[in-house]
């Protein structure tokens, strides 16, 4: 676990110096939210639509920033260096920790901006939203990390990420949209057990499958 932490630490220090992912994410969030605000204009939108737009922004931001985890190593030619210093499990864990931190930071910023800029976006059951937010972020981070590992080996990295992430992230986004709607309505956590169960299952399945699959992706 400590070795994975040190991979994360290397990536974090590298990110602070190169700003590969943070700049891409910040610009993307700024541009997409601005475009949404301009296109809505003075129109009144429903709280459900605001909740839907929140996850749309999160989904596309994840595409622009989280894919960097392995792609940046491949572009810099340091993938082989990682091969020579750590086992596949350690590499994947380190990259996953980095993406988890990035996705939590990114989604917190997006959620705060949404609640400031969209007055209709009012969450009545905050604990339910936080549960959905945490489980959703874990799902997005795990899925993005394994997709990043797959596309880093391909020639058409840019186009492959949306193609691969859509079917993988769609079930997650659909459940998150449902839970966001419930939390806007003020439904109790007890009445959302099924959706929370599906989210937990998604996270467990994606994490297990990613660790199993990563060995094959990592070794060409």
């Amino acid at each position, binding site marked *: 676990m400590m070795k994975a932490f040190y991979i994360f630490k290397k990536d974090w*220090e590298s990110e602070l110096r190169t700003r590969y992912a943070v700049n891409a994410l910040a610009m993307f969030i700024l541009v997409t939210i601005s475009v949404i605000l301009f296109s809505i204009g003075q129109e009144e939108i429903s709280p459900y639509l605001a909740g839907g737009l929140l996850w749309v922004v999160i989904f596309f931001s994840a595409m622009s920033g989280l894919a960097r985890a392995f792609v940046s190593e491949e572009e810099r030619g340091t993938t082989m260096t990682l091969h020579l210093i750590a086992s596949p499990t350690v590499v994947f864990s380190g990259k996953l920790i980095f993406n988890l931190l990035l996705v939590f930071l990114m989604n917190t910023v997006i959620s705060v901006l949404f609640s400031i800029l969209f007055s209709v976006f009012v969450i009545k059951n905050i604990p339910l939203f936080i549960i959905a937010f945490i489980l959703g972020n874990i799902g997005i981070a795990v899925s993005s990390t394994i997709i990043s590992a797959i596309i880093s080996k391909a020639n058409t990295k840019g186009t492959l990420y949306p193609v691969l992430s859509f079917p993988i992230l769609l079930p997650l986004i659909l459940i998150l949209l449902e839970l966001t709607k419930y939390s806007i309505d003020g439904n109790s956590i007890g009445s959302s057990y099924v959706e929370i169960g599906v989210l937990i299952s998604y996270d467990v399945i994606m994490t297990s499958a990613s660790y199993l699959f990563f060995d094959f992706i990592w070794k060409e």
Partner: protein
Amino acid sequence: MSSYLLKLESVTKVFGRRLVFENLSLDFPPGKVYGISGPNGSGKSTLSKIIAGIIAPTSGRALHSAGGKIIPAEKLHNHIGFVSPYLTLYDEFTALENIEHFSRIRGIVSDNERRGNLLNDLGIYSRRNDYVKAYSSGMKQRLKYVFALIHRPELILLDEPTSNLDSSGKDAVYKLIENEIKKSVVIIASNEDADLARCGEVIYLEEFKLKQNK
């Protein structure tokens, strides 16, 4: 003397429709420097990567053992030191930061004395706090030796070991090889006569037969 043993069992590699080599079965007992030679495209680097566990062979296997015990694939990186021109270190870190990160990720305590000695032997001690992006290609090649040797590996794989190096760099590398052979198995993949002259046994990939040099 090292107890490390490398054994290739019927190793075959195919890229698409192109057969690189087939049924390569070889033993690399300790105590010698081994050379892998052959024309461009004969598979020297591919074989080095298969031995290092970076790529998988199409069929067959590379067995590594130390002290009579087989080394599992997920722990192989702790036993191998690898240098090649296509290996890249992190440009955004200094030489010392690179080595620190690698040592921590490998889970070893950074040995300041060994680190200092290696940097000194390779003539880059005075530039240890410079960012790698400011290094010349020859200095980067020298730093790769610190990366490859800092964890005291039992198998040292050198693919084109003197690439980008000036004469003093080459001398430093040959001296290091001489020192390391006492503790490690050393394999050199090269076409340079001066590199192969250091080898006790050379494998000519295009012929698939061993030629005794000494």
